[in-house]
């Protein structure tokens, strides 16, 4: 089924486009006349350029990073020398890493993605009906997705500003004391998660909604005939049918949430204290700000390895959804 609007599946095969008189049948080479597997050279040609770009700008840097992480390459020691695992030890025993950056990242990931998928599912189901203004609503809901996380960070910081922010002004008008949102770890974390939820829930809404649109009608018809209520239908039919979609979006978004940087850096810089330090800000701080490149590289590699392991573990699910259902 095509998801490309306005492009109907072409019926009638090649005869529709080929001018009369030019059709020639060459049964001898028929097998080479489709894109099928024997066409190895062409396949390689197709991926040559992207592979080169990826090699140069992503894979080689990673290899370089790994090499550096085993040396002492810093600005005060630019010659560097072999350092064994010393950088990794320094990273792993750095309290900023194991007490703050790593746990914070996982907490952020769990909370943010959890809220986003629940909210996204809820809103997607909600708008999956006809209602006045539906086109406008569905359009407007895309906006947060397109706004830069830095700008989202700015917006929410402004709303929660201790002195001039909207939230505290509202509290004051109700006679309540203002909260120093960015002075306390829990509230600072909360506002960051709020900003992330705002930015990414529409992404979930969009994709889940598309998923809803492509669900088969039969189970729902059957449920309606059986007299099932909306909540049971949702719980027992909609959600299970959406598992493939949900698993993909949760996975993709989780990988992205692990490397969160923009929002945190803009709003708190990892503060107050270390309360909102995450993996991304940690690597940035060690490797870039303090000019300790080899240690920064080690920190970067630790996170990379961690998430790559997870990536490999979940690849099965991923591939099955993206590839599996194509077999037809």
């Amino acid at each position, binding site marked *: 089924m*095509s998801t*490309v609007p306005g492009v109907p599946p072409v019926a009638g095969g090649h005869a529709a486009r080929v001018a009369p008189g030019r059709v020639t049948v060459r049964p001898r080479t028929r097998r080479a006349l489709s894109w099928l597997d024997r066409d190895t050279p062409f396949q390689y040609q197709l991926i040559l350029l992207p592979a080169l770009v990826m090699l140069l700008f992503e894979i080689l840097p990673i290899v370089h990073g790994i090499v550096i992480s085993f040396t002492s390459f810093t600005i005060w020691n630019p010659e560097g020398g072999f350092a064994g695992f010393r950088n990794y030890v320094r990273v792993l025993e750095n309290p900023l890493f194991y007490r703050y950056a790593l746990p914070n990242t996982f907490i952020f990931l769990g909370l943010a993605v959890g809220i986003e998928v629940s909210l996204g599912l809820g809103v997607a189901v909600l708008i999956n009906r006809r209602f006045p203004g539906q086109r406008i609503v569905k359009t407007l809901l895309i906006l947060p997705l397109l706004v830069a996380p830095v700008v989202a960070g700015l917006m929410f910081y402004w709303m929660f500003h201790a002195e001039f922010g909207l939230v505290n002004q509202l509290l004051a008008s109700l006679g309540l004391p203002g909260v120093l949102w960015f002075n306390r770890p829990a509230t600072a974390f909360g506002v960051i998660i709020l900003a992330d939820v705002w930015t990414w829930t529409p992404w979930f809404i969009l994709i889940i909604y598309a998923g809803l649109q492509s669900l088969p009608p039969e189970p729902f018809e059957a449920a309606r005939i059986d007299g099932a209520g909306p909540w049971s239908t949702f719980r027992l039919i909609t959600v299970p049918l959406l598992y493939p979609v949900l698993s993909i979006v949760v996975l993709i978004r989780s990988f992205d949430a692990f490397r969160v940087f923009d929002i945190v850096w*803009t709003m708190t810089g990892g503060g107050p204290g270390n309360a909102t330090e995450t993996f991304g800000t940690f690597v940035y701080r060690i490797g870039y700000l303090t000019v300790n490149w080899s240690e920064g590289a080690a920190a970067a590699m630790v996170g990379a390895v961690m998430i790559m392991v997870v990536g490999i573990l979940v690849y099965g699910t991923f591939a099955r959804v993206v590839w599996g259902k194509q077999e037809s």
Partner: protein
Amino acid sequence: MKTRRRWGNAFLVALIYVVTLAFLFPVLYLALTAFRPPKDVFSVLGAGLSFSFANFRDALGWQGVRITEAFVNSAIIATTSTVLSLVVTLPSGFMLARYRNRLARSWFFVIYIVRTIPYISWLLPLFLLSQRFGFHDTYTGIIAAQAAFHITFYSWIFKGFFEGTSKELEEAALVDGCARWGAFVRISVPLAIPGIMAAGILGWIWGWNELLLVLFLTSDHIPMYSKTISTFITEMGVEWGRMAATGVMAMLPAVIVTAFCHRYIVAGLGGLHRR
């Protein structure tokens, strides 16, 4: 799934409106702040109908912050890197759509694994390489790195779109004696134009929004707005009027795309799940 007719259920519809308003609210509030005269910035809601462009004027003329230059750079770099990305990843997505063999699966696995790696893990070494090889703080450096960034995602999007286009036309062209690349360029690509639009628009916005790459690979030669904004809270302190105005200007592409190109965004992202 057939949509149900629920005209009568006012509560759910009202809920929808509330949710939509909640999502729009931060944007509206920032815009309101930006359009207030500078003295009213600190009491945005209580200032009646007062309206002014002063914040925008001040932001663009902000001494030393180089905002105009930053916006221009961000636009140039987003455009160039998106075009480059599209050229590079169209064949990749096509390959994943048309082939099922071991090479295709391996390629998919490679781009998947590379995408799981946190950006910062290859950005830091890339930054070091950029210094050693002299492409730090150059247009070439950041454009090429941005192009590399989205290979995986675009490949997925194009895979989805090419799966929806017709193989028959391409095979017909091959029967006619077209070379494979010729068929690709002249038949497959034009059919995927909606997908190209979707990926292009999304990609442009992402390029426009990019922060981490910019932090690592640019410096004084190439100011970019995302980096400027990221320093606002820690370094610019109390200039909220200008900061709000800058934020509003930064959101302009998002607003324009939402208003005029949402169809493509929906198509692009909607195709990701592919049943």
